[in-house]
């Protein structure tokens, strides 16, 4: 029996890792294939000629050359989106309601993480920190961001959603949008009172900006920033942990029971409100960690930093099939990949007519297309493992 239990536990860790590997590879291969077909179609086009004139390479060579870097960026941002998307999808699974304030929960995590790093930096400890030490400081910032976001998510549910539980979900939705705006301005207020500015920049510390050489193609070295590795690893660890929590622990099963039938869950002795709070805590903490990782990757944050990643992660959750944890991971990965590809190639392929700033447009257009043809999302048809 003990051996049997042991094998189940290992399976619960290996399975999501395998899933991630499949999603990352799948999204990467698909996007690369589409891009290379486009590159072949664009041979001899104006864009091709411009490239040959200015850089001395054809469009196919140019695309192939930059592909690995684009894929790495896509995976990195994809994992950030996935971590945020899980917060939307968990809450939806349990309450059938979109927590639009989740983007600000993310921002609070980013701010609390960055502020604690700024404070540590002010003490002068980070300048002399070893590589190991800087990872510890980042870990501390992650924990602080997670605690702040998780706590705020629980508070928001208690104050703004629970009293509306028996009202139509539209009412709670309006409440969520209200909370979202209120939190933005609260962050702004607190920041302007304490630091006198709205935006904050994560201090430079450790070796996070260094690049690790991965492999070499001819003369070209493919490398990855240390911070991208950190983002990916942290996200993978959290996603596996979440999968384990929801799939294999007693509280995880109770959360799923509450998601499926609140009355019956209560009749089995499950404290439904406690499980809903726990869902917000876990989803919020994931969002907070994603906020700190986002700040690490993009360095500068402001009170509205949550909006774009939030709306994209929501889109990712819908793309994957909302309420479905695996779907959130897949949706995040696909969206991150599309965005990375659009950002890298849109300018070149349109000869500058559409720059990288149009990447969001491409990402959302593809989202609309997918939803039109698969209204339940990519994994909507399978028996969904609700949060």
């Amino acid at each position: 029996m003990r051996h049997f239990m042991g094998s189940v536990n290992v399976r619960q860790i290996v399975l999501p890792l395998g899933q991630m590997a499949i999603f990352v590879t799948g999204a990467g291969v698909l996007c690369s294939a589409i891009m290379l077909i486009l590159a072949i179609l664009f041979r001899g086009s104006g864009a091709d000629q411009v490239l040959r004139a200015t850089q001395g390479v054809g469009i196919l060579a140019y695309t192939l050359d930059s592909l690995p870097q684009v894929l790495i960026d896509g995976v990195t941002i994809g994992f950030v989106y996935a971590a945020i998307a899980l917060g939307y999808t968990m809450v939806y699974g349990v309450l059938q309601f979109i927590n639009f304030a989740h983007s600000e929960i993310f921002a609070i995590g980013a701010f609390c993480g960055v502020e604690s790093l700024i404070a540590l930096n002010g003490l002068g400890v980070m300048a002399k920190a070893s590589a190991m030490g800087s990872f510890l400081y980042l870990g501390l910032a992650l924990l602080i961001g997670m605690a702040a976001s998780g706590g705020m998510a629980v508070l928001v549910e208690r104050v703004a959603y629970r009293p509306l539980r028996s009202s139509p979900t539209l009412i709670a939705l309006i409440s969520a949008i209200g909370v979202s705006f209120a939190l933005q301005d609260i962050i702004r207020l607190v920041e302007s009172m304490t630091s006198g500015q709205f935006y904050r920049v994560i201090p430079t510390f450790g070796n996070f900006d260094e690049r690790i050489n991965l492999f070499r193609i001819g003369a070209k070295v493919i490398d990855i920033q240390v911070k991208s590795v950190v983002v990916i690893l942290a996200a993978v660890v959290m996603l596996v942990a979440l999968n384990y929590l929801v799939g294999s622990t007693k509280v995880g099963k109770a959360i799923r029971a509450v998601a499926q039938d609140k009355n019956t869950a209560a009749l089995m002795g499950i404290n439904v409100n406690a499980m809903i709070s726990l869902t917000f805590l876990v989803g919020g903490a994931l969002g907070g960690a994603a906020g700190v990782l986002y700040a690490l990757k993009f360095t500068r944050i402001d009170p509205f930093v949550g909006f774009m990643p939030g709306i994209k992660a929501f889109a990712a959750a819908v793309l994957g099939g909302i309420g479905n944890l695996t779907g959130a991971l897949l949706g995040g990965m696909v969206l991150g990949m599309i965005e990375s590809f659009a950002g890298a190639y849109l300018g070149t392929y349109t000869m500058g007519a559409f720059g990288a700033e149009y990447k969001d447009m491409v990402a959302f257009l593809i989202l609309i297309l997918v939803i039109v043809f698969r209204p339940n999302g990519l994994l909507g048809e399978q028996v969904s493992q609700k949060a």
Partner: protein
Amino acid sequence: MSLLELKDVHATYGNIHALMGVSLTVDKGEIVALIGANGAGKTTTLRSISGLLPPRQGSVLLEGRAIHHLPPHVAHKRGLGLVPEGRGIFPALTVTENLEMGAYILDDKHQIQANLENSFTLFPRLKERAQQKGGTLSGGEQQMLATARGLMSNPKILLMDEPSMGLAPVLVDQIFDIIRELNARGTTILLVEQNALMALSIAHRGYVLQNGQVVLTDTGPNLKANDMVRKAYLGA
């Protein structure tokens, strides 16, 4: 002292006065049937006992202690086992997980394991389906699962809401055999049923509900022979 006692319980849904002073008792070791037409207040009575619909007035006592003010998850800990209306199977949890949820309030892993094995002995069918999702079971299997799940917490009393609903006659017979068997092993049961004939055949005592009030109470066999009951509920 009765195991379960309802004293003058009133319950409302908004403006609808669903229960108007229901009083009943269930003694240890009994099967008590609660029969009546659709909308008579049978399910509402169970909801009032379990805490899903706290009574407006009156009291619910389990072993003499009031439980009517408790939320359902706390009332359950006092010893209520529930087989809810429509079975309430968690469709995306496996059969085993559904059973584990029935034992949610237990901490002793060995106890849970023993109860799980007991469920599988009682319902070998569930063992075959142990890793299947609850939603993929047939109606009869779901009823077995709901019943086994209700027993997982070692309740003092099992409250069953319409166990025969939507089942083929052969399965109804099977379910009622199981109820009788559970009772023979010492489980006290409050059975809410639309199928009055079957319910009264196995019940020690019965209550007839009409418009939210108890209009008649007697032993099972007497009620089954009662003219009014025969006309109204047994189609005779």
